[in-house]
């Protein structure tokens, strides 16, 4: 089936689904407004709150707050888009009705791309507007000064969370358990692995930063970490991956997630 047909089919399936509507609605409402919460965080010796809204910093702060929204709402949406089809047995019925497994799988990847593009567009528009509203003079060139790659980074981050969520769902299948594992892995399991098990087994090295969720988070890290690196007395002290490293590693993991998902989806009974 053609890409447009697969995407249209996915839209037809979910346009009346209230959970999907709520997740997208909350993401859309919070994307332009979450940054204002950070404004109230008064941390001594660090840039004043109003600097959050100026170019170019506004991109990084908005990307960071947006990354939490992508993780929470859109990554979970990725889980739901698969578990709902399993729960309602519509995955089975789609195949029985004539869809190939490959087309079913592709449809889910394409809709994740579409949602990630929407999220990125919202990120761009809301950040540009917030930044311009806090400028004294309007200079369109300033919008993209020094931050030309934040937009594709945000797209990659959102897409990666969705694909990770989908992979969890393909592997675990059950809605509650998939949701639990999605959130637990990102918030607790990987950090525990990295900061305890990895160090215990392999000692501390830069490999500790090459885990999937860490790489994805470093696509839009909390900008304060950059200040920490600049002021650290330790030589070669690093907290974050570079944007290039984060993007490369995240892309590799996205490919791995897609490969694992497709392998198990194709191999198993539906």
């Amino acid at each position, binding site marked *: 089936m053609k890409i447009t047909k697969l995407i249209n089919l996915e839209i037809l399936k979910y346009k009346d689904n209230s959970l999907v509507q709520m997740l997208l609605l909350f993401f859309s409402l919070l994307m332009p407004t979450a940054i204002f919460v950070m404004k109230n965080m008064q941390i001594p010796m660090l840039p004043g709150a109003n600097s959050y809204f100026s170019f170019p910093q506004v991109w990084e702060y908005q990307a960071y707050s947006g990354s939490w929204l992508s993780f929470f709402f859109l990554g979970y949406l990725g889980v739901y888009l698969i578990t709902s089809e399993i729960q309602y047995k519509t995955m089975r019925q789609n195949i029985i009705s004539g869809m190939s497994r490959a087309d079913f799988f592709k449809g889910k990847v394409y809709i994740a791309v579409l949602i990630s593009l929407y999220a990125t567009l919202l990120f761009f528009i809301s950040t540009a507007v917030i930044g311009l509203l806090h400028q004294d003079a309007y200079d369109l060139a300033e919008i993209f000064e020094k931050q030309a790659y934040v937009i594709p980074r945000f797209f990659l981050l959102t897409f990666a969370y969705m694909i990770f969520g989908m992979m969890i769902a393909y592997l675990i299948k059950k809605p509650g358990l998939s949701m639990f594992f999605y959130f637990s892995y990102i918030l607790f399991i990987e950090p525990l692995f990295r900061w305890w098990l990895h160090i215990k087994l392999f000692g501390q090295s830069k490999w500790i930063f090459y885990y999937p969720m860490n790489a994805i988070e470093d696509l839009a890290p909390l900008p304060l970490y950059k200040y920490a690196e600049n002021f650290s007395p330790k030589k070669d002290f690093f907290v974050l991956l570079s944007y290039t490293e984060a993007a490369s590693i995240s892309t590799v993991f996205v490919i791995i997630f897609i490969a694992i998902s497709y392998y198990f989806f194709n191999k198993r*009974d539906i």
Partner: protein
Amino acid sequence: MDTILNIRDLSKSYGHIKAVDKLNLKVEKGDIFGILGPNGSGKTTTLGMILSILKADSGSFEWFGGQFGTNPRKKIGAILETPNFYPYKTGIENLKIVAKIKGINNFDFDSVMRLVNLEQRKTSKFRTYSLGMKQRLAIAATMIGNPEVVIFDEPTNGLDPKGIAEVRTILKRVSESGRSVIMASHILDEVEKICSHVAIIKNGKLLSTGLVGELLSDDYLVEINAFDDEKLKSFMKNSPYINTIKKSNKYWTCTVDKNIPAEIISKEAFNNGLILSHFVIRKQSLEEEFLTITKT
């Protein structure tokens, strides 16, 4: 004759349980083919494999002689186990999704909704449907795109008598439309009434297959009862014409070879001093034949 489905040595196990065991089956174009078996005999597993949602361990199957490649399912309409639709979408929207998957444009959804008596509820959400309505919507979905074959798996399962009657009427209409039909069921009565051919499976193995008429035994049944029960029992055991004997609530049932005229039994009973209170001759039903076959 065009073979629309050819199954060769199909097998599948779930752990150590052999669900389907080297099954061989052929369905020709125009057949109304019933797959009969008790619960757990492998009917749904077989349908799942030929619809490519379950992976076979070994063996193969081929639809339409392979002319539609490895995905001929757009030419097939099927329900497997329960009706599976999006609960938050209406009946007609669910049918539109099926049509989109099959690549069907400009389909007359109202006509299939009328066929299954759901036209008045077409804009209601699927989750508001009763079980009977859900089953009927599933039948409607099988008709989208005018498929060459329709497959029904236990179509009257869980329905009340009214629902069963409605679904059977629709099934009869479908079977009379000239399509090939494959129907899995453990309800022999509906297979007997609707199907032209039947395959009987048990524990994943094919026990018997053929025309519904052919599968009936050559023996006919005699229901018999007498005032002297002990004498009647002795008579039936010693009679050279009577093959098997079974006691039910109100009378005895025995099988008699088709070449023996039934009045010989009556005459012989009288000659042995038996006054019969009940004597009815009838053909053995598929149910009795099925129970005989599956007991062996």
